[in-house]
């Protein structure tokens, strides 16, 4: 193993040192080790692990667990912000209804997002706890962790943790003497961003092409193999054990009045800042506060724009950094919080080139199921490429506007194309002049040559 390899090897890492993380304020990260190694069962239990699970399964009914999660208002951390407790309350349950599945969406591929990777690699037992509690609340008979294939270190960490949990009786029959049976299998994917869309994920889990499914029925009514199925993001599930351990009020106050939402959030920054990285902070922390932690822009760079939570969120301007980074505030500003990991863009960066890169990604990753997405995205790329070369047509700006609308919400089966349209329409709104500069000025250049 040469020194270069060692220096370059990627390790998921939280920026906050242990001295700044506490049990009562940093539920997602206070247990993390300074050496970034995966926490085994013994250490996890020493650090009050599985207390939330024990409490949920032995002191509460399933519907009480749902009520507590509802009261805490845990909002989905995969990007949509849908309240997890409400989602759970919509799962079909009853004597005549077969027990279904709880699926953890660990298919993190949103451009600019590297938060679930850290949780999966370093703290798999927190996720397993969240899944046990979720399964108990939703009467799920079995769970799957749908992990993207590239997360090899996470697969090792999860596999070990599942074995430990099974051996210790946290998975299997009669968990913690509660009479509840549940187990989890790890399913690794084989590429394709679209697998992160929850119904495409279910098709992939069933071994099909990952095309999305029509809704309704929603997965809670008819999901994997037609059974009631809950799909939750990694970070969402990792929020649940703390809620059951400390209660809904505790969870609510974690945001310290910065937001109507409760809890903390894994925030991150990548792009042209001094210190890229990941932090656990109260939800509602402002963009300015986060940028300060990231040390501001690199020298020689000035902030031009930022994506609040991945490639499928709309661009925002420097002035928007004063907003709380929560679902409602960023939504009102015309974008989406998404995954909450900022991509920071320098003045020196051409917006047209960045959009070309983003739309190439969405075009390549379209599953091809419905027309606006299959046809519209490659068309968008073609137009952007022409503008980037300075060979655009005068009508291209209007064409991009129309494409943005045609790819938008309500036009397609799933959220893939609307996700692609968000950065496009926001870029046209804020940086129209850059697109206009890509329109070819006919004749003059040619004549001079």
């Amino acid at each position, binding site marked *: 193993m040469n020194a270069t390899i060692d220096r*370059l090897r*990627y390790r998921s890492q939280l920026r906050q040192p242990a001295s700044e993380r506490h049990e009562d304020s940093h539920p997602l990260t206070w247990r993390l080790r300074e050496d970034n190694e995966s926490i085994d069962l013994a250490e996890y239990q020493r650090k009050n692990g599985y207390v939330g699970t024990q409490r949920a399964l032995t002191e509460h009914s399933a519907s009480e667990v749902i009520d507590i999660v509802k009261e805490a208002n845990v909002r989905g951390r995969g990007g949509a912000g849908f309240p997890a407790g409400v989602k759970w309350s919509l799962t079909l349950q009853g004597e005549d209804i077969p027990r279904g599945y709880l699926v953890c969406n660990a298919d993190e591929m949103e451009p600019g997002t590297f938060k679930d990777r850290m949780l999966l690699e370093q703290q798999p037992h927190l996720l397993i706890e969240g899944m046990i509690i979720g399964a108990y609340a939703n009467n799920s008979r079995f769970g799957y962790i749908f992990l993207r294939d590239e997360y090899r270190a996470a697969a090792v960490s999860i596999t070990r943790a599942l074995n430990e949990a099974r051996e210790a009786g946290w998975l299997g029959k009669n968990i913690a003497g509660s009479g509840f049976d549940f187990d989890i299998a790890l399913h690794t*994917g*084989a590429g*394709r961003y679209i697998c992160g869309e929850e119904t495409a994920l279910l098709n992939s889990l069933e*071994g099909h092409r990952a095309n999305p499914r029509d809704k309704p029925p929603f997965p809670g009514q008819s999901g994997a*193999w037609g059974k009631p199925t809950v799909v939750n993001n990694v970070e969402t599930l990792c929020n649940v054990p703390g809620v059951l351990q400390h209660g809904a009020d505790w969870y609510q106050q974690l945001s310290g009045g910065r937001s109507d939402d409760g809890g903390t959030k894994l925030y991150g920054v990548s792009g042209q800042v001094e210190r890229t990285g990941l932090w656990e902070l109260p939800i509602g922390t402002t963009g300015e506060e986060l940028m300060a932690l990231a040390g501001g822009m690199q020298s020689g760079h000035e902030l031009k724009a930022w994506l609040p939570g991945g490639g499928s969120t709309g661009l925002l301007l420097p002035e928007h950094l004063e907003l709380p980074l929560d679902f409602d505030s960023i939504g009102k500003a015309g974008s989406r919080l998404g995954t909450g*990991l900022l991509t920071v863009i320098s003045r020196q960066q051409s917006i047209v080139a960045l959009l070309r*890169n983003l739309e190439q990604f969405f075009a390549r990753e379209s599953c091809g199921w419905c027309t606006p997405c299959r046809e519209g995205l490659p068309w968008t790329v073609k137009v952007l490429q022409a503008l980037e070369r300075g060979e655009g047509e005068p009508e291209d700006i209007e064409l991009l506007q129309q494409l943005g609308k045609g790819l938008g919400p309500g036009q397609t089966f799933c959220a893939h194309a609307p996700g692609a349209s968000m950065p496009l329409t926001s870029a046209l709104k804020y940086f129209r002049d850059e697109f206009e500069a890509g329109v070819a000025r006919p004749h003059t250049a040619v004549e001079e040559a």
Partner: protein
Amino acid sequence: MSTEQTVNTIASDRFELERADREAMQQECEHFEQPQAACIEALKIVQRRYGWVPDDAIPAVAEALGLPPANVEGVATFYSLIFRQPVGRHVILLCDSSSCFLNDYDTLRAAFEEKLGIGYGQTTEDGRFTLLPVCCLGACDRGPALMIDDDTFGPVRPEDIDELLETYS
């Protein structure tokens, strides 16, 4: 699940699954309500052994799982990490998503292409490396990032390439 329930399967006499692989595929079925769900893992089992999934493996996998070959073919052509042509001994996946793009991905890609003398989707003449793009690797805090086989690296600069590749013979 029984392998007797084969429907529409046309076994190929040009390809036979290793017994251990066949058993691993059938064991994978135990996790799911339907054998179709083991399809992706079954293709990955073939790929782990041969490096890629040859056409003739499709009916063999279908037969092992009791599925129509068209179902297996449909899956095998959808997923980007199922390789349908031979690849090199080591596969390099360059992250081409936004954060890496902002961190000089274009330069890194050009350096790899020049160093290896190949473009995306191609394999070096000595059969050592295949170069492919990949979706955001979730290593954006250290872009530009890439994977070689099971390992993830970042940030990788053009001057690191020689030493990085040395380890993969």
